[in-house]
């Protein structure tokens, strides 16, 4: 018999598939974007591929938290909330809306508003993950196992890495726009390369975070 816990668990695994697995294409594609040997037409084709595939990590990034919470419900957490627990989905639908807007409206004033709202969502979530879950754990407001707290902390770190990626990569889009308009110059190529070099440590840290998240979820260590 397939129960709801099984569905959440398989969804949780698939979220990791389309986050960590899909990121290979995004990362590898970005290394080809800064290859001077590649023509602008080629690089435009690569950016189309990256932009499409990157939707998957973006959506996975949003879904992993509410799906993880639903899994915790199946383990007996938050039972006092009853069906109100489904309200956890509301902010994530909003967040999805903000992310979609920030991508599809990129470069416009409306797009900037969406980016701001997306940033606010992330900050709230990071605060909840670190401060909220710590309060719940250390003041024993609800019983939280060590591994669950650890997963919250790692997820928070992954979200911070997401910020790191956004800020360290912020110079890429304008430089790429200049590449399309003016053609390749040493200065533009250097800017593109510098952006990708700056983003790499954040991406690697994010991957390590995701890999650790999955290990903690599987091994459920206690301290």
């Amino acid at each position, binding site marked *: 018999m*397939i129960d709801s816990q*099984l569905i959440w*668990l*398989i969804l949780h*695994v*698939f979220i*990791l*598939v*389309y*986050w*960590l*697995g*899909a*990121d*290979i*294409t*995004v990362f*590898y*594609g970005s290394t*080809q974007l800064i290859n001077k040997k*590649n*023509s602008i*037409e*080629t690089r435009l*084709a*690569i950016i*189309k*591929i990256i932009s*499409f*595939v990157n939707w*998957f990590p973006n959506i996975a990034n949003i879904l992993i938290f509410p799906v993880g919470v639903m899994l915790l419900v199946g383990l007996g957490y938050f039972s006092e909330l009853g069906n109100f627990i489904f309200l956890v989905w509301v902010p994530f639908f909003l967040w999805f809306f903000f992310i979609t807007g920030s991508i599809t409206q990129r470069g416009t004033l409306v797009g900037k508003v969406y980016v701001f709202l997306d940033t606010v969502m992330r900050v709230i979530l990071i605060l909840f993950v670190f401060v909220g879950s710590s309060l719940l754990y250390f003041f024993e407001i609800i019983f939280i196992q060590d591994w669950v707290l650890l997963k919250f902390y790692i997820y928070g770190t992954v979200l911070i890495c997401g910020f790191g990626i956004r800020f360290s990569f912020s110079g890429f889009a304008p430089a790429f726009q200049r590449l399309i308009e003016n053609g390749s110059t040493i200065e533009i190529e250097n800017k593109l390369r510098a952006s990708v070099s700056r983003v790499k440590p954040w991406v690697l840290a994010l991957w390590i975070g995701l*890999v650790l998240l*999955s*290990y903690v979820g*599987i*091994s459920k260590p206690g301290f």
Partner: protein
Amino acid sequence: MFLESIIVWLHVLLFVYWLGGDLGVFYSSRFRNSANYDIQTRQLIARITSNIDMAPKTTMVLMIPIGFSLVAIKNLWLMPDWLIIFFWLFGLAWLALVWWLHLTKDAKKKAPWAKFDLILRYILCAVLVIFSITSLLYQYPLVENWLALKVLLFALTIFCGIMIRISVKPYILAFAKVIQDGSSPEIEKQLNESAAKARMWVKAIWVLISIAALIGIWKPII
């Protein structure tokens, strides 16, 4: 316990990089097949696709040692230690061959080994089908039916992989012709027909490994 969780974790990561990596391969192949792009762009995208495809190829091969180690550690097949060592040696040797075939540019040098790799896949597919059927009928060598079904699904993914190789043969020839003589509606038609056939098998792999993942998590009583 620690070793078991490490192996389960690696097993999950293999699935992650197999299915997740395939997404990029699948999507970027559309650009490679599009006549809207110049041949240099299509060639480069073909190279990118081929490089990303090494993630699914690597994970598929590693599923053998990791998967059977998991089976052994969970006592789902009471196998002697030497057999586990054999699975690892086989998996690593096969992985070395897969990477060598990817990195070697000399087609003549590659040809016999590519054939060997294909024969290996046929044999492996047949062996795994036999494993799963005898297990489903006699609970040997695998003691659980859900696991036998999972192995059968894995064997079918290997079969789909073989079918991809067969269906892309005309594609490879047509793509080489595009590089040499340039694009024409006739060649593009050949490319797209061949790619459409391969896509069907790729989608079958996605379905099969997704069901296999579901069964692995669910462990239904069959």
